[in-house]
């Protein structure tokens, strides 16, 4: 019973940060048809930026709860700056190219950004534990869980609801769905597709950076975190169905819980259980568990 509770809570915490990263990837794929490998670098940038800003904030002895503002600021700064650079500076030229070439181009940009991180922040790990300390911990099933981690679940739930609302209930969402459905007709109907692409990419990048920024206080921020997270995000997105927001949520929960269960019960399979599920989903339902219904164009 205690084990089940631990797996559930750990799994949901893990799932919530995977959701932040995965949902950005899925939105970008849904709208632009780009499988964006640089997403992993945005995540890493978010984490480093957040660690730096939090360090500065507490170094200047400012009010303690402002640390959370710094997390948000890091996500916005990284999302806007890198989002604009990559979309306007790179992807813009590649929309009419083969989809594999685009993936490879983002892989190249990812390699470049990985080294930019090293150039800016160096090889030493960064710590930004203050916001985590601030929130204390709660006992669940006899074990202490950090409230900071638990708050991540709330943030992700809010994000999921907000995105769902924006996409289904606002004009902007309607435009986005139109672009997803048919790029050319939307353009003919007067939708500024270029602006929609840029806007989507910035929001997607912000979400990736937010995942990193929010995770930063709980880990030691060091080189290599982006490489790992991007394949996990791929798994999340594939499991849920590429381009589907509810899919990203389900995918994140599946990956989060199964990873937590593997860690606690069968550590030998921890590393590959996620990719095993990913392969199984691709075999059984290649469009993903919750793929949006697509019109077949002939």
């Amino acid at each position, binding site marked *: 019973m205690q084990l089940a509770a631990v797996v559930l809570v750990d799994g949901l915490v893990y799932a919530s940060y995977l959701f932040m990263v995965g949902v950005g990837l899925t939105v970008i794929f849904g709208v632009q048809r780009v499988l964006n490998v640089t997403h992993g670098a945005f995540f890493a940038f978010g984490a480093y930026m957040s660690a730096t800003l939090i360090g500065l904030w507490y170094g200047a002895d400012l009010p303690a709860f402002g640390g959370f503002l710094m997390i948000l600021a890091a996500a916005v700064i990284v999302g806007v700056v890198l989002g604009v650079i990559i979309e306007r500076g790179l992807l813009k030229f590649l929309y009419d190219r083969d989809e594999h*070439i685009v993936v490879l181009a983002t892989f190249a940009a990812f390699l470049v950004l990985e*080294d930019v991180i090293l150039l800016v922040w160096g090889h030493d790990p960064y710590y930004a534990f203050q916001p985590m300390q601030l929130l204390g911990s709660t006992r669940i099933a006899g074990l202490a869980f950090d409230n900071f981690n638990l708050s991540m679940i709330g943030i992700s739930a809010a994000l999921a609801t907000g995105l769902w609302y924006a996409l289904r209930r606002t004009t902007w969402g309607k435009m986005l769905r139109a672009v997803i459905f048919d790029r050319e007709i939307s353009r003919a109907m007067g939708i500024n597709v270029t602006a929609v692409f840029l806007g989507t990419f910035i929001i997607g990048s912000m979400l990736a950076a937010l995942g990193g920024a929010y995770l930063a206080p709980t880990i030691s921020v060091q080189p290599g975190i982006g490489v790992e997270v991007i394949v996990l995000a791929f798994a999340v997105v594939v499991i849920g169905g590429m381009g589907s927001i509810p899919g990203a949520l389900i995918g994140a929960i599946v990956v989060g819980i199964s990873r937590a269960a593997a860690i606690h019960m069968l550590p030998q399979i921890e590393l590959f259980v996620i990719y095993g599920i990913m392969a199984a989903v691709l075999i059984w339902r290649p469009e993903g568990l919750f793929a949006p219904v697509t019109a077949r164009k002939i």
Partner: protein
Amino acid sequence: MTRLIDRTVIGLTAAAVLFGLLALLLPDWVRFIATQSFARGAVALGLLVLWRTGLVSFGHALFFAIGAYAAAFVQRALVNDAFVMTLAGMLGGGLMAFALGFLLCRYRGIFFALLNMAFSMVLWGLLAKNEALGSTDGMGVASPEFFGVELDGGATHLALFYFALSSALVFAIGVHLYLRSTLGSMSTAVRENEIRLEYLGYSAARAVHVKYVISGVLGGFGGALMAMVVGQVDPDSMAYWTISGEFVFIAILGGTGNVGATFIGALAFEAIRSAAFQWAPTVWQLIMGGTLLAIIMFLPNGLWSMVARLRERRAS
């Protein structure tokens, strides 16, 4: 019946002989890098076979790693011989591709790429947690013998270089002839219009399956050769997704227009990487990524398009 020997076959053979003679004058480390290039080039050649069908795999490190581990395992358990180890690697890669091919031959586009990646990451997870296979540290591979002849360090490297060069030549010509055959020329047909191909009475799935096995064998060869050259197999530098990315990188760098181009791409890749490691170790990824971006933007058909352009100029 087309002629068996055409311009490409002659060109490849001449290039290989020339490079083989030239290599005698070059220092040992150049040959060492070249041997590694041939290992990676072989995997990229397998990707080219798939590419012609419009399929890209983001998980060919799977076969690379299987080849490498098979070679290492055979050396420990059976016999320490370069040829046997290589055959084991090719067999391992081929069998795995044959088995997975039944599934993968139904997939196209991004799903094909991602399912390959999922399988390669499963293997990575298995290898990294398997203590019998050395977990993340992997295993050492001793200098291989050639037909029972034990050579010293330098001679082993020289022998491996010529072994790699001649194998690369054989594979390049083999793939070239395959692509010219009826089965091979179905590649373009699958890419352009699969339904029409089926109506003509061919099976697209079977054509893809054959290609997949070829690419698996080549991947296994590359892995086995790499294991013998560097004397080490481990999951992070053999099975991780970034390694798969590098293979696609090489295929693009060389260009997919000619079988020789993949080896040019592989040599360029290793040369750039070694130079970057040597003179700018802090930004080598930046240099690699920048090169790749430049190729995608300005030379969409890879380095080979420069050769093709020269030829055109001479023709006109």
